């Protein structure tokens, strides 16, 4: 669900490229997971960066969000949209 042309899923970022979270498709997640994502710091306007992609297919991703690094799978990363910082 891309609202703006400048938005892309976090998954599309290159490693080390810093961007801001533009939108999170919370409807695509169960409520508990959506809340946990928020508790881990994923929120609109927060700066993010992919710091690592796992070997064997680049899944999961290690994403730096604020001061924290969180591992998540690409399937979930697709629900997080970013825009240029």
């Amino acid at each position, binding site marked *: 669900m891309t609202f703006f042309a400048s938005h892309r899923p976090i998954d599309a970022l290159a490693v080390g490229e810093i961007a801001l979270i533009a939108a999170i498709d919370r409807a695509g*997640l*169960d409520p*508990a*997971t959506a*809340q*946990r*994502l*928020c*508790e*881990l*710091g994923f*929120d609109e306007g*927060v700066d993010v960066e992919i*710091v*690592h*992609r*796992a*070997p*064997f*297919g680049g*899944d*999961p991703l*290690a994403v*730096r969000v*604020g*001061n*924290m*690094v*969180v*591992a*998540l*799978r690409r*399937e*979930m990363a697709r629900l997080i949209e970013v825009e240029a910082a």
Partner: protein
Amino acid sequence: MNAPAANLPPVSARQPVVALVGNPNAGKTSLFNALTGSRQKVGNYPGVTVERKAGRLALPDGRVAELVDLPGTYSLTPRSPDEAVTRDAIFGRMVGEKRLDAIVAVVDATNLRNHLRFVLELKALGLPLIVALNMVDLAARDGIQIDSARLADLLGLPVVETVAVRRKGLDALGAALSARIGDAPLTPPEERGSDVRALQKQARQLAATVETSVGSAKAWSQRIDRVALHPVVGPLLLALVLFFMFQAVFSWAEAPMGWIESGVAALQAELAATLPQGWFLSLLNDGVLAGVGAVVVFLPQILILFLFILTLEQTGYMTRAAFLMDRLMARVGLNGRAFIPLLSSFACAVPGIMATRTIDSPRDRLTTILIAPLMTCSARLPVYAVVIGAFIPARDVGPFGLQGLVLFALYLAGILGALVAAFALRRTVTKGAAPPFLMEMPKYQLPALRDVMLGLYGRVTAFLQRAGTIILASTIVLWAMASWPQPPVGGTKPPIEYSLAGKIGAALEPIFAPIGFNKEIAIALVPGMAAREVAVSALGTVYALNDVSEDNAGSLIERLRGAWPLPTALAFLAWFVFAPQCISTLAITRRETASWRWPIFMFSYLFAAAYVAAGLTFHIASALL
């Protein structure tokens, strides 16, 4: 600080209860260890398999509080049974937990904005709350300066800077608690939902106000991760770490295991020399000492394995291992978190199954418990050693020894079996969506010796208590079954054949005949129910050798060579890859799943897998050889 009645005992004898609450990786357990030292008690909450850790905390005003280390959680909205315990304890409705008099919110100074959100959520409850701003040293290292006085002002809460691993700030924390804990018991707060996003926003603003960044954050962790998570170097490093760990587990443990064995043997000899021959001596030597010895002998391996696992966990490397392994685990329907319990299961499935408590999805956890016994535990090694020694020629294949290759193949067969089992289970009995994989990767830290040692102590006592009591009881029962009825006067067969175990084994023979097992094997599998390695000594008994131990294993090897055709020996090895026999594993599964259903299921599916594997091996080997 206003400390009324300083140094005077409190009027009421009521012991205040203080809970440590905080995000995982906030250094909560280190703070708990620093505050309570060795005066801690590890138990279980009734009805749930969540550990309760509590200790005594002497306050500067002379009162002694009970300090409870509640499971780490990100909020009061739980996602796992552990997190539900924290919520229920705070709201005063956890069975087995007293009402709280104060909360210490442990906050990671290097990750202020996420952790402050939880503090704001806790503050809204209205209970006496003190913020422990932990790991301020790491924040300084990462170039973050925090104005803690300003933070205290803005929060309206006492804020104490601490460095738990170096015991800094503990006195100030005690003083703050003294000042905040009243004498009257408090009414637990009411549960109200909170708006996570609003709190998160508020926390971010708060953090931005009190933080001054004087350098790039997390530089060290990122630098290490560039190697540890490198697409090529990362997996190689993990393989190297695991290789070194297993080398250590098996080679360092060899000597102490020998001492324990000779100690038990000496004790048995001593008893045999002092007590009259008879059933009582046999009970002590063949039942109690043999049974307890069979467990205690694995203690060195378990100690070394946990030393490695706890140290790797503390440094933060274990989450990197989980990250690297997630892809492989995902293919069979599990996630990276299952890796650590499965790793522990290579020493013994009992601590491995206990370690599954960190898996947040109940289905993933159950699947991991069910496949844990397929990891080749050290109890299989004596069996493998005897059979490989008897039937696999000690010659070289290229640069490798054939015997070593066969052993390696047996380990590999166990791992592959576990992956196939997980794949099948996740599509049948543990079917259903698992919550998506989300895992915080904490920064790297130097492990603290005190925390590793206290963790080791806790795991080892839990292992000895749980496995020790069960195996002791079951070996006594199996000893009785293998000893009675006694052989008639003038009986020519080995005494075990006249016993109940022998009769059961003989009755089972037709079941095992199609997979190439003879009557002796069937009989040996009955006392071998207690623990897999007991099958070795049982075989010794069946083949009428007295007291088969390491010292005269050679004679058993000779004996087996004459008694078993090669396909039978290979089938026996294949059986032990899947072998369901281990009462401790079944008992711990019953405990951790709180029902008999899963241990019975585990036994049945492992039995079926072992039967099929042994049968296939026997028939293929018979056709080829």
